[in-house]
Structures are given as structure tokens and as C-alpha cells.
């Protein structure tokens, strides 16, 4: 392939796009719509996931201590807790604090505590977990060791509604992945089809080019360039639209809905780049396959 041809190819690709702007506009529109759907889905999913992770971390643990525990033992327990991956001591609750809290929690029934002569509640550490691998943490060796440390009366997870919540999270994620996977497949299929359709309307052109002695590559390259340009445009336009929609949602609208969404973030840059690459590949590979089908002669 002579390098002298490249200016011709580029000129031809642009010329073709202008001359077939109707078909190109339709194809581009479809591409942008498809990628936009996928992008919007990704955006929402990424944010949803972040929020869910935030809640997931709400999982906490209470380490109850024996009444007669020494300060040294207590410090040892504290350092053991710190050794559990992802765990962080939120606070220490003394026996007195515990009673006070129970009184608050009981509310109208707190009167029943008035009759107590001694404080039967144990002191405790309240522990929260940072990392997303809570499940791993819970079965870790450090955790097992902690339970057997002298001075530790019991380790209890604040699981009141945690399990239900866990199930919901898993479901939302599963739903997300199913929709996402389907969407991805669908978008690939739709864009490839659209490019095929667009090239279909130009099969005479391919035939004539072959008849004047053009090599396969000579015919293909301008189509591939067109696909490439369309891919870049499609990716850029859909990301731009998505970003504008994001700005609109993230600033004004969310407040109006009186909705507790604090930090609604845009797609991380890896996702943006991946989307661009996918759209460029779609344009390129789509036209490559589509053109190839018309090379019978």
C-alpha cells in the first residue's frame, strides 16, 4: 500500500461522509443513542455501587469485655482489633456509657432500669470496617484469635438488618450486571448492524471500485476511516451528552427531589476511556466486517 495514497484515503473518507451524510447521520444517531444508553447505565451503576459500598461498610462489630479486665488486657484487645484487616475502632464504651445508651434506646420503657442496683452491662469496643471485603474479614484468622483473647467476653455483629440489606445489595448488583451485560451485547449488535446497513446502501460503489482495478484495501481503507471517524464522533458525542446530563442532574435537579444523594460522581476515567475505545473499535470493526461481505467479486 503506497504511502502516497493516505491523503487520498482521508480526503475520500471525508468526501464520502459529506456525500452520504444522510446515511451517516442516521448511523451516528443510532450509535450515539446506543452508547448513551450504555453510558447512562454505567454512570448510574457506578454511583449506585459506590453508595451501596458506603452502606455495606456500616457493618459493625461490638467486642464485649469482661468486667474485671485490666488496662493492659484492654490495650491488647484494642491492638488485636487493629490487626484485623479493614477494621477500625470507632469508640470505646464504658459500662456507664452502655447503661446510658440503653436508657436512651428504651425510651418510654427506660423506667425499668431505675430498679437496678448494679450495672450488669459490659464495657465494649465498637468496631467498624473500612474495606469492601467484609466477608473475608469476618472469617480471618485475626478475628478467630480475637474471640479467644482473655478479657473478651463476646464478639457480636450488629446484624439486625444487615442480612436483609446484604440480600438487597446483592440483588441490585446482580440486576445491574444482567442489564449491563445485555446492554453491552445489544449495543454491539445494534451498532454493527447499523454500520452494515449503511454500507449496504453503498454496495454499488464497492462493486464499481473493484471493477476499475482497486485492490481490496484500496476499497476498504476509506470505509474503515469512515468507521473510525464515526466511532470517534459517536463515542465523543455520547460521552459529551452524558456529561451534560450528569451536570444537569448533579447540580440542580437532585436538590429538588429532596433525595439523599450527596456525591453523585461522573464515570471514572478508566470507564470513559474504555467507552471511547469500544466505540472506536465498534466503528472500525463494524465497517471492516460489513465491507468484507461485499467482496465476492
Amino acid at each position, binding site marked *: 500500500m*503506497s504511502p*502516497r*495514497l493516505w*491523503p*487520498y484515503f482521508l480526503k475520500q473518507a471525508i*468526501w*464520502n461522509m459529506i*456525500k*452520504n451524510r444522510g446515511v451517516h447521520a442516521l448511523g451516528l444517531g443510532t450509535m450515539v443513542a446506543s452508547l448513551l444508553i450504555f453510558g447512562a447505565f454505567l454512570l448510574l451503576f457506578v454511583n449506585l455501587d459506590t453508595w451501596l459500598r458506603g452502606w455495606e461498610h456500616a457493618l459493625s462489630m461490638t467486642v464485649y469485655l469482661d468486667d474485671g479486665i485490666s488496662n493492659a488486657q484492654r490495650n491488647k484487645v484494642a491492638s488485636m482489633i487493629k490487626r484485623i484487616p479493614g477494621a477500625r475502632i470507632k469508640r470505646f464504651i464504658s459500662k456507664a456509657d452502655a447503661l446510658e445508651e440503653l436508657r436512651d434506646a428504651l425510651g418510654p420503657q427506660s423506667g425499668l432500669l431505675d430498679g437496678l442496683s448494679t450495672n450488669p452491662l459490659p464495657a465494649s469496643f465498637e468496631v467498624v470496617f473500612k474495606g469492601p471485603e467484609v466477608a473475608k474479614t469476618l472469617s480471618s484468622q485475626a478475628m478467630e484469635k480475637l474471640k479467644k483473647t482473655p478479657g473478651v467476653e463476646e464478639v457480636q455483629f450488629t446484624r439486625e438488618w444487615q442480612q436483609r440489606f446484604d440480600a438487597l445489595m446483592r440483588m441490585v448488583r446482580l440486576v445491574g450486571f444482567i442489564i449491563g451485560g445485555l446492554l453491552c451485547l445489544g449495543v454491539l449488535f445494534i451498532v454493527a448492524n447499523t454500520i452494515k446497513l449503511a454500507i449496504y446502501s453503498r454496495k454499488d*460503489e464497492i*462493486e*464499481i*471500485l*473493484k*471493477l*476499475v*482495478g*482497486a*485492490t*481490496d484495501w*484500496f476499497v476498504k481503507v476509506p470505509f474503515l476511516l469512515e468507521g473510525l471517524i464515526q466511532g470517534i464522533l459517536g463515542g465523543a458525542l455520547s460521552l459529551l451528552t452524558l456529561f451534560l446530563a450528569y451536570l444537569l442532574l448533579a447540580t440542580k435537579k437532585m436538590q429538588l427531589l429532596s433525595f439523599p444523594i450527596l456525591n453523585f460522581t461522573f464515570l471514572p476515567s478508566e470507564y470513559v476511556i474504555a467507552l471511547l475505545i469500544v466505540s472506536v473499535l465498534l466503528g472500525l470493526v463494524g465497517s471492516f466486517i460489513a465491507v468484507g461481505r461485499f467482496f465476492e*467479486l
Partner: protein
Amino acid sequence: MIQLFHIYKNFGANIALNDINLRVHEGEFVFVTGPSGAGKTTLLRLIFGAERPAGGHILINGINLSRISRTRLDLLRRKIGFVFQDFKLLTNRTVFQNVSLALEVTGERRSFIRKKTRQALKLVGLVEKEKAFPLQLSGGEQQRVAIARAIVKDPLILLADEPTGNLDPELTKDIMVLFRSIHMKGTTVVVATHSRELLAGTAQRTVFLNRGRIVGEE
């Protein structure tokens, strides 16, 4: 040199060419004639490699077309000019682009392409129309674009299928003068036609086809 040995070509049950043997020497000028549906277009398309024979062999300058690779066929086509009966112009490119296309595919230098294209358009009398699109041209103008595209690359072989069907007698004469001058430079020329006017004016070798068979030669 074009050689056809026992060429046979059918489309389904329809036999378009039947046991054709033909030899066109280098630099020869041959007319192929015969009634509508005789097989003239099919014959030219076979020589061009746009169609494959069902039987027999075609040699172009000693190269057997049925043994040739796709890439080599593309290269061979660059040396053959073909005036298609239905023109086969690209409707979304200008006249100039349609003609220059035949040189673009060879990767020639830009300035050379421009010069040759202008020359060819001048020869067929279409310089003013170079910016027009095929659908903005009259039938005869389109035919002349097709002729310009076939001759722009100084082909070794020129195959012209009914090249003057849409041209008036004056232009027909001009085009025949053009073909003859190309022939004089050494190009092998094969013209398929049923125009009596074209045939009458010359003492050229003429092959008569009928129902897929060669039925005579003059």
C-alpha cells in the same frame, strides 16, 4: 494478446457463450457484433475477469485468468480499460473524480493524475462538466465519462461495450477517431457494438456472435 480456448459460459439454464475460440493479437483492433443477447457483453466481461467461465481458458498476455490470484487480477485490471454498457459511474463522485479514480487506484503521483484526467476529459469534450455529478449529466455525457475513465490510464487493452449507443453521429465519429488514435499507440482494442454506422466506416476485423456462438468473421 488475448486468447480464448473453448470458452463456455452459462447462467443457469441459459447458455450465454458456447465453445468460443478467439485470438486477438497485440495491437489489434477488433469489432464484436451480433444481435441483442448474443453474448457480447458476457464475452468482454470474461476477458476482463469480471465473470468466470464455466469451461475453457482465457489467456491475457500469456496469463491464465482462471489461475490468477485476486490481487494479481486487480493489478491486471489496471492495464485494461473497460467502457461499460451501463457506464457504472459512481453517482456520489464528480466527473473528475470518476475519471481520476482509474489512476488513484494505482497510487500515481497527484499532479500526474490531475494532468492525465484533464487530458482525458478534453478528449471526450467534457472539461466544463468536470465538477458535475453523473446524475446531472445527459446520457451521452455519462457515456463519455465512462470512455474517459477507460482511456485515462493508457491501457494496454481497451474493451468498449456499445460505447456510442447514446452518442450522436458526430460524437460517434470523434470517439472512433479517438479509439483509433489509442490503437495507433499500440493498445489492443475490442469494441462490442451493433451499430451499422460504426461497422460500415471501417475495414476492421469483425467477429459475429449469435446465440453465444461465433457465426462468422470478416
